[in-house]
């Protein structure tokens, strides 16, 4: 069941487009903001409101990488592995982040505190290597500092 809050937010999005389908990505993002990820159940909740089938919704969801179709930890760490960051040590940063977070690449830590995902270019190549935690962008990260950086996220 969609919460009232979710429903209101989605209905506001619906007014911004001429078709309901167009709001599907926004709707899934809204659900994700509230629930951390988009479960099968969430798709079933959304389908009637967006007037799409769960199959159609998942066809869209599975195309985009910022719609999480699997449960994530409390904090999502995105480590850029695109070219500039790769040159400047993204690999080591990923390893360091994995060790510090206790989460494997592409996975979630046992305490569900962190999910660690490699990500494509974050648009901060002049400050490589970079990573993003829950939307906070961290510049020029020294892999040695990964642990202290992540300590801020409880």
């Amino acid at each position: 069941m969609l919460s009232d809050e979710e429903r209101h937010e989605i209905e506001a999005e619906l007014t911004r487009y001429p078709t309901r389908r167009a709001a599907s990505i926004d709707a899934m993002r809204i659900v994700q903001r509230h629930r951390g990820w988009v479960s099968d159940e969430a798709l079933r909740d959304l389908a009637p409101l967006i007037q799409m089938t769960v199959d159609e919704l998942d066809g869209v969801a599975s195309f985009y990488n910022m719609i999480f179709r699997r449960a994530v930890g409390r904090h999502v760490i995105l480590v850029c592995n695109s070219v500039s960051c790769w040159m400047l040590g993204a690999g080591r940063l990923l390893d360091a982040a994995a060790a510090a977070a206790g989460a494997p690449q592409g996975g979630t830590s046992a305490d569900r505190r962190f999910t660690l995902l490699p990500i494509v270019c974050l648009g901060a190549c002049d400050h490589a290597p970079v990573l993003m935690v829950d939307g906070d962008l961290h510049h020029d990260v020294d892999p040695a500092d990964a642990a202290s950086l992540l300590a801020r996220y409880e």
Partner: protein
Amino acid sequence: MTDRPLTGRMREDGAALDLRAYERAGGYAALRDALRRLAPAEVQKRVKDSGLRGRGGAGFPTGQKWSFVPMGADAPHPKYLVVNADEMEPGTFKDRLLMERDPHQLVEGVILSAYAIEADVAYIFLRWAYKLSEARLARAIAEAYDAGYLGRQILGSGYSLELRLHISGGRYMAGEETGLINALEGRRANPRSKPPYPAVVGLWGRPTVVNNVETICNVPHVIGRGAEAYRKLSATGEGGTKLYGASGRVKRPGLWELPLGTTIREILEEHAGGMRDGVRFRGLLPGGASTDFLVDEHLDAPMDFESLQKHGSRMGTGTMIVLDDRTCPVGMIRNLEEFFAQESCGWCTPCWAGLHWVADILRDFEEGRGEMADLDTLAAHARLLAPGNTYCALAPGAAEPLQSGLRHFRDDFERHVREHRCPWR
């Protein structure tokens, strides 16, 4: 060089110009002027005359793109203007600056551009990762509505425009203009066939123009200064300034607004401060991941659309990625091709299958399993993933660093085969 129309009024402290500050700095004057005195066709003409070319990568003349939109009483409505703020080309970080630091400049550009094509609704299609841009744009849009720059009867003129911010679900392909249209419609971001072009059949089947953030940000200056003055800003005559950037092992990675046509050497050595101590320059991708490598011999080329084309590369986004001698070129190309393979939408065979194979071979090289014959396979892909052979420009873009990399760094590839390992590891 002091005349930096796009960035000159940005604040030193990194904060955004708010409405008041923007207006004080002369913002929205061009819009007021245009709404009062210029018909849409005249706005279009000015942009055409200015020589403004798209800053999103392909460099298509902006005025010309607009001219394909059906105009007048019989034109289908609503018409749409879409700002491409997806900026997912690896090595590219220019639009972010424009949106974070001077969001009203973009909003004014949107209104002027929308007016030029008589659009009813505009969308800014924003990269999900740009949280700060999102907040600042949302605020600027709200301010613009309050001030009467958006909404019904803008500034008392007969022109109305709605501007909406859309946050992307995240895919490189969502930045390709027709993929973007599908994404905005709430679909998978597969590209669409052309013709019909979006200018005729775009969002929800209606005429639609898609322009890059930087392109749109130039429009107030074209209108404000006039086509001639704007054209003269460039070093070579292609019109205007350009946000150039550099990343990699240079002393001062960053972003600079310079006259269009500034030489690579000047950007690399004066603005980026040259290579870091202890590393040597080996080559660069001039404008993001999907451009051809340039090497020493090209450093004196002016960075503009035509010169770079002459040298076998492309201006792309104008943000260069610099390769140094401590980085394995094969590894760099592998990184690029993995990106493209991963971001392929899966629609056309050469791309989804070809790039997967290319990335697979490049991994083999890195891990010491490469064979000489694989070089032929790679070269064949670089040739076969050509524009027209694939459905959209993603795969041809991927072919550019591959084919030029094979040419310039052939020895490095062969060493991987001979030594059965990556010499840099």
